[in-house]
């Protein structure tokens, strides 16, 4: 489940995708802290403090696209049809949707028509029932490009069976203008407490998308004020917002007396009486405050990793720290329109010193070398046979031989463009340059700041290699490989997310085929096969998986980090002493 915008992924060099990997329960190889549910059994009561630097971008469910926000609200104020189970140690199970407001997770014979039955007795914070029409209205908002932006609207707008206008946009223009409303009313229908979604092509991932995003959440039409509701929470979960939310400062959740735990299958324990979100706090201050643990800081959790300068301070507090692989993979992409010789790309990949990069980031508490752009925690993941053969520290000698055999002129000039402004990344790029130069390249580093994405998106730019980071939108490689390597997103003016302008018809076709597979494991395997094809082209070079080294207050109990919440602390289980 993804959740971070690509730009932020890199800028923060720290957050994002879906992690499965080892940590399913605490068995990750190099854990220094413990990893499982910890702090003892949680009991009800107390005030939880959630410290973070990064403000929530949207609290409007349809507009959310950041993993942390999706799961903090999903465990507290927003319920959906399906959700991921809390406290599940098994990665596959943790990423398998279970019913929430739905009575069960249905199947679809053709993958195109999905009918879901709603539970009785689920109420909004004003006591009204959550009804089918609320779900229908919620997803209709994804079409309102005239009023709303920011969310993963592409899923409902591309899949729901609604005709397209000439410009490719859906003929339905959302609930505000109501243009094309009849078309939408055909695609999403309510019959009593049964809602039916009709898609224009099979979408086996639908339950995953519902559980991993908030774009299919219900929304109350009579509460809708469009974009003005960006920080408004109208709850149907165990908590509700007390007063207002202030961006950059945060807000406070208190218990919602209209919530009936009997309608909720044990996912939301809702232990603390209140949850206070404090935004905008510097990372090192967060660490220091939790270490000192004065007052309410002893009840604190955070989504911010401990930074290398604070490692020594945090290490003694083993029972307050966790170290897990995050869902976010970082990688380099050769510009296929410039570096056309596959041997040159192979030599780049072979000479890449990921071990040195990880070292520059702070060692195994910060990251672990990656061998695929698909996070190993995703269902159906298969080891990448190409990149797993290259030593993590790279092999410049072998790379030099590849270049020599290919008969290219050395030193081969390479312009490496990345998002600068972060000294750690500058250091890491120095390491990469060193390995490449040893292999016979002449690397020039090109750190860009605000202009990075504008430059990268120019199809005719003169960079040879870019740097990127990605996390899946929901737990499926379907939200990795197609988004990053489908050549059909390339146009004369834009490259979309395909920065390397990778074009391979076979891959495009395989992507279309994989999209039809409804079994998550089989689909994952299909995407891993496509990954292998792309790797044979050296269409990208995997670098590292970011790790989450988190600290929590000494009074925190029931602390869990699983794939169900993208390895962020699970607010469904946490409590305070």
């Amino acid at each position, binding site marked *: 489940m993804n959740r971070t915008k690509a730009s932020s992924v890199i800028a923060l060099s720290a957050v994002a995708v879906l992690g499965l990997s080892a940590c399913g329960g605490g068995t990750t190889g190099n854990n220094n802290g413990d990893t499982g549910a910890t702090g003892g059994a949680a009991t009800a009561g107390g005030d939880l403090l959630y410290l973070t630097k990064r403000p929530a971008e949207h609290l409007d469910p349809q507009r959310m696209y950041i993993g942390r926000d999706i799961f903090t609200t999903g465990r507290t104020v927003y319920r959906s049809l399906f959700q991921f189970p809390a406290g599940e140690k098994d990665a596959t199970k943790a990423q398998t949707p279970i019913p929430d407001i739905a009575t069960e997770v249905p199947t679809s014979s053709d993958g195109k028509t999905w009918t879901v039955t709603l539970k009785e007795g689920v109420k909004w914070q004003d006591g009204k029932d959550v009804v089918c029409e609320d779900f229908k209205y919620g997803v209709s908002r994804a079409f309102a490009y*005239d009023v709303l932006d920011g969310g993963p609207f592409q899923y409902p707008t591309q899949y729901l069976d609604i005709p397209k206008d000439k410009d490719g946009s859906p003929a339905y223009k959302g609930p505000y203008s109501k243009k094309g409303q009849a078309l939408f009313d055909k695609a999403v229908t309510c019959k009593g407490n049964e809602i039916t979604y009709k898609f224009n092509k099979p979408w086996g991932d639908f339950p995953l998308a519902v559980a991993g995003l908030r774009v299919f959440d219900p929304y109350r039409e009579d509460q809708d004020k469009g974009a003005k509701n960006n920080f408004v929470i109208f709850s149907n979960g165990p908590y509700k917002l007390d007063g207002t939310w202030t961006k950059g400062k945060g807000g406070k959740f208190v218990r919602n007396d209209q919530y009936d735990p009997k309608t909720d299958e044990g996912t939301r324990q809702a232990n603390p009486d209140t949850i206070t979100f404090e935004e905008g706090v510097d990372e090192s201050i967060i660490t220091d405050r939790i270490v000192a643990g004065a007052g309410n800081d002893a009840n604190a959790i955070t989504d911010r990793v401990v930074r290398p300068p604070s490692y020594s301070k945090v290490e003694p507090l083993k029972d307050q720290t966790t170290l897990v692989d995050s869902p976010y993979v970082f990688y380099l992409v050769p510009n296929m329109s410039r570096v056309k010789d596959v041997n040159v790309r192979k030599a780049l990949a072979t000479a890449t010193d990921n071990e040195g990069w990880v070292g520059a980031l702070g060692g195994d508490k910060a990251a672990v070398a990656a061998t695929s752009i698909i996070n190993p925690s995703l269902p159906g993941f298969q080891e990448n046979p190409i990149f797993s053969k290259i030593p993590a520290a790279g092999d410049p000698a072998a790379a030099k031989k590849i270049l020599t055999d290919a008969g290219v002129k050395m030193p081969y000039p390479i312009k490496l463009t990345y998002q600068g402004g972060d000294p750690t990344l500058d250091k890491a790029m120095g390491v990469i340059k060193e390995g490449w130069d040893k292999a016979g390249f002449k690397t020039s580093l090109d750190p860009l700041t605000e202009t990075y994405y504008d430059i990268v998106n120019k199809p005719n730019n003169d960079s040879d290699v870019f740097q990127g980071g990605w996390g899946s939108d929901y737990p499926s490689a379907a939200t990795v490989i197609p988004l990053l390597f489908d050549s059909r*997103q390339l146009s004369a003016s834009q490259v*979309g997310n395909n920065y390397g302008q990778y074009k391979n018809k076979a891959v495009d076709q395989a992507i279309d085929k994989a999209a039809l597979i409804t079994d998550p494991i089989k689909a994952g395997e299909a995407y891993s096969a496509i990954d292998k094809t792309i790797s044979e082209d050296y269409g990208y070079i995997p670098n590292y998986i970011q790790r989450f080294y988190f600290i929590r207050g000494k009074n925190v109990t029931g602390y869990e980090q699983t794939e169900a919440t993208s390895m962020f602390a699970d607010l469904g289980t946490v409590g305070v002493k």
Partner: protein
Amino acid sequence: MYAYVIRRLFSGLVMLIVMSFATFLMFFNGAVDPVRYTCGKACGVPGVLERNRAMLGYDDPVPVQYAKFVKGVFVGRDFPDDPALRKSAPETIARCDAPCLGYSPKENSTVTSMLAERAPISASLAVAAFIMWIAFGVGGGIVAALYKGRWPDKLIVGTALIFYAFPTFFIGLFLYKFVAIKWELTPQPVYTAFTEDPVAWAMGLFLPGLTLALFYIAGYIRLTRSYVIEAASEDYLRTAKAKGLDKRTILWKHTMRSALTPLITLAALDFAGLLGGAIITETVFNYQGLGKLAVDAATTWDLPVTVGIVLTLSTIVILANIIVDVLYAVIDPRVKLA
């Protein structure tokens, strides 16, 4: 004098118009596409950039956008300004009353209400810092001047230099992490509105105020010291001594009057600058003041907020300069405004 002030206000107004238009021009003519900051990961989805551009009105020519902005200042605006939407879903339209400086969809708020919300925070911080820096800076400078060349002088100037040598964010982090968190000598610096709890307001402002003050203290110690020393060597101080005045009168009436007069104007301008927000301090202590707003707006390319901040800061600076000039005319009888 009134004519002078009116003339200055008028030229200030012209300056504001030029600056706001320049901000628009720079915003849309840089290498960066501001729309890219509105969609994050979704930017890669075909069509999203164009749609967001249209929604924000960034696809209009700059002069048209500027004209809309100016219109908003006088008669207010609707966001989005879409007549069809006004009919079908009026509740989604955000009304920004005159004087409307814009509406930030990102912040979900009109620029004027954001400014109004954050200005008191920056102002509180400025007041706290001002009190401390004047007390320590001017006081220290006077003591240093009186003991010129002797140990109190060296101690004061040396200590001030040490603080001056460290960057503000370092001082801020140090105070925050050690004084507030580790040693728990002060409560955690959290902003509380004065109207809510004056004591908590003052307590919360202590560390950030000190951080900010330390930046100015060193400068004011050195300035005050040199002004006092310079004033003490003036001929009229010799006259005062020759009259038989006692030391206290010479120091406080004659020396300080001339030494502190230039400081008053300087301090007034520095204070005015702080009213516009202290970027580093507000960031370190997570005070949601104008400085933090400015950084956030600049780093997320939020045009309405950026323009609003530019105008606010410019207005503060222009007004402060006028006030200081008038003030100077009042405290220095030699100055005539014309």
